[in-house]
């Protein structure tokens, strides 16, 4: 007789969901802040908008202790290898948020100095548009990332 999913037991079928639920509410972010978007990032983090409500309130200033890389601001060609190095230093599971149009696409910069979006060098999970994005946008992006974390296949 073919085993039904219910026969596999509650623990083994719900483990993925449970780990996702746990991870999405304990995001330790590494703020890679390079430009003016940092102001909106700070506004989102402070008491008015209070990113701590979503379990992402504690920035870690070492990529080795973080699992969410927030690239906040313009990344130049000169900085690109540094960003790649920071990303490589993070342990799995890890996620990346491109905060603002400059990190997402290069924004209004189209010149010799600017990297046209960080997805040219590292994979990105959520893009938050805006120049700079409002804190509501940031929180919306964070919720989208949480939904993504909940529904993904968890690394165990």
């Amino acid at each position, binding site marked *: 007789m073919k085993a039904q999913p219910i026969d596999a037991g509650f623990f083994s079928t719900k483990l993925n969901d449970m780990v996702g639920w746990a991870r999405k509410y304990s995001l330790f972010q590494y703020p890679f802040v390079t430009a003016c978007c940092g102001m909106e990032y700070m506004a989102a983090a402070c008491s008015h908008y209070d990113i701590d409500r979503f379990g992402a309130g504690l920035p870690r200033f070492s990529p080795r202790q973080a699992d969410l890389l927030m690239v906040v601001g313009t990344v130049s060609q000169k900085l690109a290898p540094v960003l*790649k190095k920071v990303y490589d230093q993070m342990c799995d599971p890890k996620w990346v948020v491109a905060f603002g149009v400059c990190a997402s696409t290069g924004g209004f910069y189209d010149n010799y100095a600017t990297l046209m979006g960080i997805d040219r060098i590292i994979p990105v999970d959520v893009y938050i548009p805006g120049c700079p994005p409002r804190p509501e946008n940031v929180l919306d992006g964070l919720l989208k990332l949480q939904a993504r974390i909940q529904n993904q296949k968890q690394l165990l």
Partner: protein
Amino acid sequence: MILEAVKAKFPDEVLETSEFRGDLTIVVRKESLAQIMKHLKEEAAFDFNLLMDLTAVDYLSMERKPRFDMVYHLYSLRNKHRLRVKVGVHEKEPEVDSLVVLWPIANWFEREVWDMFGIRFKGHPHLKRILLYEEFEGHPLRKDYPVNRRQPLMKQKSDHELEFIEAREYGQAVPELLRGSANQEEKKI
């Protein structure tokens, strides 16, 4: 009054003087730049003890000879007057005297002008790129630098492949930056 005094002191070296709504400008001969600047800084009547800015202009599309202008903005904190000094720089020999010995702030300004315009400074203690990376070819604020030319340090293999090629290993350039060995090579260009 400043213009007349400079002109009287250096009748052959000052090529041109002009005044526009209180902004004074002199154009001087390239060979005597260091001498005139030294005088402007040290003579009590001028006493230009602050070099506010130093930059260059590329007049490529105007087909002007010389192609570049070096522009210096001077200010006197005691006398509270200003002066703009310009020097023409030819494309074939883009080199002027360094003013680091007079105003130490000229050090980074001149490195920026070298970085962006490729104008060398004779006597500069550490003339190398200040904003861009050492692998960068050319000088992007020259008007003949192609507007679409990109020189990424890291390249994506293709649009659909998330495999990245590093144009160079990160970290290799760091010892070079610390050594400053590129200084001699740049001078040859």
